[in-house]
C-alpha cells in the first residue's frame, strides 16, 4: 500500500539521517562533548587577523609613531612590525580552516530554540544561513589576503620600507566590520537561540535547572 505520501507506519521504517542518528546519542547540549569547539577556535581567527592588520597599519604609519617608541625607550624596527602582520595572518589563515570546519559540524547538530527572533529581527534558520555562508566567505577572503600579503612581502614590495599597500590595509579594515557583524550573528545563535548551551537546552526541554544543573 505505497502511495505518494508515506503512511505513519512506513515513516517508522525509514532510516534516520546520519546527523539525526548522531544527535540522539549526544548530551543535553546536542554535542558529543561538553563544550563546543568552534567558539574557541574563533578566538584565534579574530585575534590573529585583527592584530595582523593592526601591526601592518603600525608598520605603514611608522614614520609618524617613531618618536613615540623612542620616548617609551622601546626599541622597534619597521620590519619587525610587518613581521607580526605577516606571521599572524599566516597563522590566522591556517587555523581558520579548522574554525569553519568545526563550525559546520556543530551547526549540523544545532537545535535552536523555536519561535525566537534575534535582537536584529532574524529567525534562527536565517541567522545560521548567514553565519554559515558568511564563514566560508570570510575564510576565502582571509586566504586571498594571505596570498596577497605574501606577494607584497616577497615580491612586489620586497625592497620597500612599507611592506603593504594602502588598499590591503583598507580591505583589512573593511573585513573588521564584516567580522564584527558576523560574530554578532554567531553570538546570537548562542545567547539568544541557545544553540549548544546546556542550560538553555534544558530549560527549553522543560527541565528544572535547580535539579538538572546544581
Amino acid at each position, binding site marked *: 500500500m505505497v502511495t505518494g505520501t508515506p503512511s505513519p507506519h512506513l515513516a517508522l521504517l525509514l532510516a534516520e539521517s546520519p546527523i539525526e542518528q548522531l544527535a540522539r546519542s549526544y548530551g543535553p547540549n546536542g554535542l558529543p562533548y561538553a563544550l563546543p569547539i568552534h567558539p574557541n577556535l574563533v578566538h584565534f581567527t579574530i585575534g590573529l587577523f585583527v592584530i595582523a592588520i593592526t601591526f601592518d597599519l603600525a608598520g605603514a604609519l611608522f614614520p609618524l609613531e617613531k618618536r613615540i617608541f623612542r620616548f617609551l625607550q622601546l*626599541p622597534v624596527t619597521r620590519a619587525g612590525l610587518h613581521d607580526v602582520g605577516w606571521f599572524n595572518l599566516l597563522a590566522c589563515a591556517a587555523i581558520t580552516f579548522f574554525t569553519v570546519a568545526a563550525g559546520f559540524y556543530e551547526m549540523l547538530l544545532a537545535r535552536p530554540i523555536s519561535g525566537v527572533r534575534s535582537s536584529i529581527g532574524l529567525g534562527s534558520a536565517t541567522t545560521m544561513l548567514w553565519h554559515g555562508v558568511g564563514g566560508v566567505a570570510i575564510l576565502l577572503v582571509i586566504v586571498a589576503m594571505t596570498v596577497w600579503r605574501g606577494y607584497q612581502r616577497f615580491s612586489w614590495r620586497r625592497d620597500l620600507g612599507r611592506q603593504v599597500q594602502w588598499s590591503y590595509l583598507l580591505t583589512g579594515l573593511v573585513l573588521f566590520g564584516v567580522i564584527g557583524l558576523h560574530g554578532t550573528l554567531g553570538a546570537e545563535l*548562542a545567547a539568544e537561540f*541557545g544553540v549548544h548551551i*546546556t542550560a538553555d537546552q534544558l530549560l527549553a526541554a522543560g527541565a528544572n535547572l535547580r535539579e538538572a544543573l546544581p
Partner: protein
Amino acid sequence: MPLGLSPPDQQSLILGRACVAKDHNCMPGAFLFLKVEANPVPRPMFELLPPLNDHNLPWMDTIHPIVVHFVIAMAVITVLFDLIGSLARRPGLFEVSFWNLLVATAAIFVAIIFGQVEAGLAEPYGAASEILNLHSTIGWSLAGVLAVLTAWRYVIRSKDPTRLPVAFLGAGGLLVVLVAVQVTLGNQLIWTYGLHTVPVVEAIRAGLV
C-alpha cells in the same frame, strides 16, 4: 534571591561593591553594576546608564568574550612562535612573539574590567558561583603572570633579541596551561550554565533558578 531580577523597565542600576551584596565574585575594591528592585531614592544620574536588556546587560552583548580573543590568541601564538623560532632556529620569530606577548598583556586588563562588570551582572546559580570565583581569581593572577613574563622578555630582548633562554620557553608552557584552564572555566560559565543568555536570564527573572 537577594537581588531579585525584575523586568528591564522596572529596573534601576546602582554602582556598588559586589562583595557587599553577593557571595560570588567578591573582589576587594572592584566596583560593579548591581541592580536593586525597589529604589525609593531618585537617582537621576544613574538613569544616564543604559537599562539592562534581556541579556541582563547594559549593552547589546557580552563584551568580555570578545576582548579575550586578544588574550587567548596572542598568549598561545607567542609560545608557539617561540617554540618554532627555537626549534627551527628562526630568531626573527622571537620579535613576532614579543609583540604578541605585549598585546596579550595589554588586552588582559581590558578583559578584566569588562569581566568584572559582566560577572557582577551574571547572577550565577548552582556550581557556576564557584566556577566564576575561580575564573576571576585565575584571571587576575594571569594578568600578573603576563606582566612578569613581558618584563622578563623585555630584558631578554634588550640584551640579545636573537637568543631565547630555555627557561622562558618553560614559562611559556606554563602560561599556555594556565590559559587553557582559564578558557575551560569561562566556557563552562557560558556553554554549560548559559550566564547572560536570554533563556537563563528569563528563568532567573521568573524565579525558576
